[in-house]
């Protein structure tokens, strides 16, 4: 159990958040169910079956012309950042 907890905590860390001990029992329950799902799918023969990434093979994928459009202003782009300075998003120093 401790091994599983450690693994799940690390997985949370890899997903860039922490989980508390209080959150662990429900996570373990859901993890076990998820692994049941995985196991069940393993019982289905998918030899020579290609993955389907979208509901149907998309008939039209396109790229628009490479023209400047849908421009947002610098002010707008920074509007929702909590810490800005001189029209830039401020973050802690990377090189100390």
């Amino acid at each position, binding site marked *: 159990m401790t091994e599983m907890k450690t693994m*799940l905590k690390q*997985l*949370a*860390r*890899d*997903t*860039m*958040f*922490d*989980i508390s001990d209080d*959150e662990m029992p*429900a*996570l373990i329950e*859901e*993890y076990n*169910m*998820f692994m*049941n*799902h*995985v196991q*069940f*799918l*393993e*019982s*289905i023969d*998918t030899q020579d*079956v*290609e*993955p*389907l*990434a*979208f*509901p*149907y093979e*998309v008939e*039209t*994928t*396109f*790229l*628009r012309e490479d023209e400047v459009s*849908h421009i*947002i202003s610098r002010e*707008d*782009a920074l*509007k*929702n*950042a*909590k*810490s800005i300075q001189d029209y830039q*998003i401020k*973050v*802690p120093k*990377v090189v100390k």
Partner: protein
Amino acid sequence: MMIQYSIEELHQLLQLNDFDSKMYYDELFQEAEFQQKKLNAFVTITKEKAYKDLKKADFISLLSGIPYVLKDNYNTKGIRTTASSLMLEDYIPIYNAHVVDLLNQQGSCLIGKSSMDELAMGGTNQSALTGIVYNPWDRTRIAGGSSGGSAALVASGVVPFALGSDTGDSIRKPAGYCGVVGFKPTWGRISRYGLIPYASSLDHVGAFTRNVRDMAIVIETLAGHDEKDMTSSIREVPHYLENLNDNIKGLKIGVLKSISDEIIDIEVKENFDSIICKLQGLGAVVEDITMPSNLMKAILPTYTIIANAEATSNHACLDGIKYGNRQDGETIDEIILHSRTHGFSHYIKRRFILGNLALATENQERMFKKAQKVRRLIVEELNRIYEDYDVILTPNGRGIAPKVNEIVNNYLYDDHVILESHLCLANLAGLPALSLPSGFVDGMPISVHLMGRIFEEQTVFNVAYALENILDFKNQYSREG
């Protein structure tokens, strides 16, 4: 009170010279505030904007001057858009979702943003930042999710239509619980630009209305190509309202026994059987069909793995730095870590962890790719059915909306899991799908579910329209709960 009108009824009223639209909206907001106390369905009420929009409305087009609600995952320029997540509690978009622009062009009046499961991940609305949404038919029960607020506000007669989003059943399940029409079209039919995503290969824009004609109006307005969404289809949009036809003689309807045989509740079963009889009475050719049981059992696992994996990837952008609820930290990594730890509820964290598990290099083939392969098998099986049948009919779920204190985790395996989770077939295959009120059990509404071939929205609308016309649930709403 006069605010329970359908889109078409209200449109006719708004065109009359002696109709006081301002007074109508005054009453509407009184009711909205009253219902908010009862249902907790709004995140934000946009009263000021609605009156501004109303002043500009010319009432010429069917949706001009019509009040509506948006699920709070549609970006609205200058209006807080939280997706019911603490992470986005102060987020004010700088642009509109494509469908919001379309409704603005029509002159529709946004009256509020509605509550939802956090980031649309859930079927109960219990993970919403603002708390659970109550069912207008019985406030001891849930409205369902993830588009619970939108469902409740249409079902309580506050607005004639509301937008939701549907990744697994997030429009159709709450529509069923609340006794209104819920619809999502073919994947690609409506642009998703500006809709905060959940799982891109499964997400759909869709709507709630109180009758099928209104649904045809809303979907016709929203459908069409948008260069800002590269998955949006270039196919021409048919005139759904004009082509609406309740003559369904000879149409072939397959009753998916693999689902309907799972019904336990006798009254739900009787109701479902009565709908089959009614369809036969309308001249449709109704026949039983089945799908292999291992594929039926694979629906939920396939959906869960794909949805969680795509969600984890999509929401990697929520770091608290560019936008979102930033928390302090000594390094960039710490800021992200603290912001995400603080900003996501435990429901969402669990899903992200499992999504990340499925995407890890060492697991990807065994989990994510495997699920995508099984998805192909499921979709191919459905397409085989559609070679012979125009529409697939199933019950919308196992029964009525659960009590607030009896919410069951969607993930839990139990005997009814196939019945309860099968609506996501329409997401896996991108099919147009509609939930139609079909009756009542214990005073609560229940529904049936209709799925058509891709891009055959019209057929689904026509079957629903024919049924609706011989049932008694058109335009129903409840303010009694």
